[in-house]
């Protein structure tokens, strides 16, 4: 393959050689701002590294509301630090909530009574649990859709893995009482739209999911209070389901006998009916045409190398990264170094539970010079695997296409 073809094939977004000549700080920034080659030109041009309060520099997708993604470097550990955790907001009016003012209200026509908790009561009245779980934006990798679809044009970093500490939602619901006929539980946070006409961000989950032991009201993340931008003082953790349900700045819980309506339940966050047949069901929200997005599809990310990197002949190439899914747990990660002709299993790292990132690693020593197309494919314990081709959908969800990384050995 000629050099020009090689660069074109890797998207030309990152050229290791050019960066080496620069001052170290600039080289670091250029590395952190690495963009997958499939992003639209305007998406790449509008990105920059910007540090929000309490955060390290993240890749800015939009200033207001703040949508910032985590650079690749931070996925080299199983857990994503609070400072590097991605930031995603739908509405631009985000109040600073103080512990003194914060109250969590439980109500609704299927709620046994109306109850209100402050943080002290929440921590005192219920057993505290900690769970490792991936929070992943439904639209992670939307920017890599071909053809492109509008929205926040995320690259690979609208996700993170943390140890969430809190109380089980079901313990709170059982204390308040759940009436027969409860169908969904809806959640609201303190954020608001700029105009009264702007639909408030309200999301619901099926009653069964609300009573799942892995659905939490979390107040800590990685051993510390939630950062403001990640939902202080409390957020919902719906382990296994995409981030849209993980309500930040949680203030209101509505136990309902009727389906929750509103823009954010329908038409937003919908998948064409039947396109992802293995997905968890949400029957009370399904229509003939579409279904709400539910659980996270199996996927992986290579963090040790990037497309376009060059290696010396005789040097070992480390293909490692992370894999995750919606809670079945990772069964294996297969690596191909010959354009998909043969596959070998990577070694899996420590298991932090079925909702967590799982590390993998695979080493190989190229025997001759040339261009190598490396592919990585994760599967979960149910047998779902990453797809070779994109399952396109209008809103740009569930991108879990097998990565293809071209490296050059000389």
């Amino acid at each position: 393959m000629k050099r020009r073809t090689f660069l074109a094939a890797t998207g030309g977004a990152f050229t290791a050689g050019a960066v080496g000549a620069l001052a170290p700080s600039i080289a670091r920034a250029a590395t952190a701002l690495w963009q997958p080659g499939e992003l639209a030109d305007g998406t790449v041009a509008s990105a920059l590294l910007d540090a929000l309060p309490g955060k390290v520099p993240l890749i800015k997708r939009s200033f207001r509301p703040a949508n910032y993604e985590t650079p690749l470097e931070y996925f080299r550990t199983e857990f994503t630090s609070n400072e590097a955790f991605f930031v995603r907001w739908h509405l631009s009016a985000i109040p600073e909530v103080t512990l003194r003012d914060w109250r969590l209200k439980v109500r609704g026509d299927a709620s046994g009574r109306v109850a209100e908790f402050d943080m002290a009561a929440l921590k005192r009245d219920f057993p505290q649990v900690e769970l490792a779980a991936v929070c992943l934006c439904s639209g992670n990798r939307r920017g890599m859709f071909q053809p492109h679809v509008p929205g926040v044009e995320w690259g690979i970093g609208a996700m993170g893995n943390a140890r969430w500490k809190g109380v089980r939602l079901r313990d709170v619901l059982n204390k308040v009482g759940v009436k027969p006929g409860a169908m969904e539980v809806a959640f609201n946070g303190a954020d608001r739209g700029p105009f009264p006409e702007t639909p408030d961000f309200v999301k619901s989950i099926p009653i069964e999911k609300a009573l799942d032991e892995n659905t939490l009201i979390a107040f800590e993340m990685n051993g510390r209070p939630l950062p403001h931008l990640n939902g202080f003082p409390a957020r919902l953790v719906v382990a296994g389901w995409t981030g849209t349900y993980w309500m930040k700045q949680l203030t209101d819980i509505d136990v309902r006998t009727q389906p929750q309506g509103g823009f954010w339940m329908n038409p937003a966050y919908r998948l064409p009916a039947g396109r992802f047949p293995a997905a968890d069901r949400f029957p009370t929200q399904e229509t003939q045409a579409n279904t709400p997005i539910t659980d996270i599809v199996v996927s992986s990310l290579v963090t040790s190398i990037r497309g376009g990197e060059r290696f010396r002949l005789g040097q070992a190439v480390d293909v490692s990264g992370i894999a995750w899914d919606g809670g079945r747990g990772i069964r294996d990660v297969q690596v191909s170094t010959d354009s998909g002709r043969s596959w070998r299993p990577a070694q899996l790292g420590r298991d932090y539970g079925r909702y967590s990132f799982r590390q993998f690693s695979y080493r190989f020593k190229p025997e001759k010079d040339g261009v190598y197309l490396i592919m990585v494919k994760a599967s979960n314990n149910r047998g779902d695997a990453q797809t070779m081709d994109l399952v396109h959908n209008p809103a740009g969800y569930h991108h879990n296409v097998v990565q293809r990384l071209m490296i050059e050995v000389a």
Partner: protein
Amino acid sequence: MLKQAFVAVLFVATGTAFAAEDKFKLVQAPGAAQVQANCVACHSLDYIQLNSRFLDRKGWEAEVTKMMKAFGAPVKKEDVPAIVDYLSKEYGKQ
């Protein structure tokens, strides 16, 4: 790419002294004033460049309609044609 990285480094080094979103400037062309006046109340204008250039005229029209109908943005009706023209021409698929 390198120039962009350099800008990013400057930005980080000087921190919050910048009103961050004002760093983004729309392409100056007919319609830019209407976009500025009607869109900035709800979101920063970098959303436009972020979503470029892959929407055709129909695509941008659908976005403007969504902002008004779904999000309740008080866009002036008489400004809509100029906004759609501008977005299609300056940030649209050619």
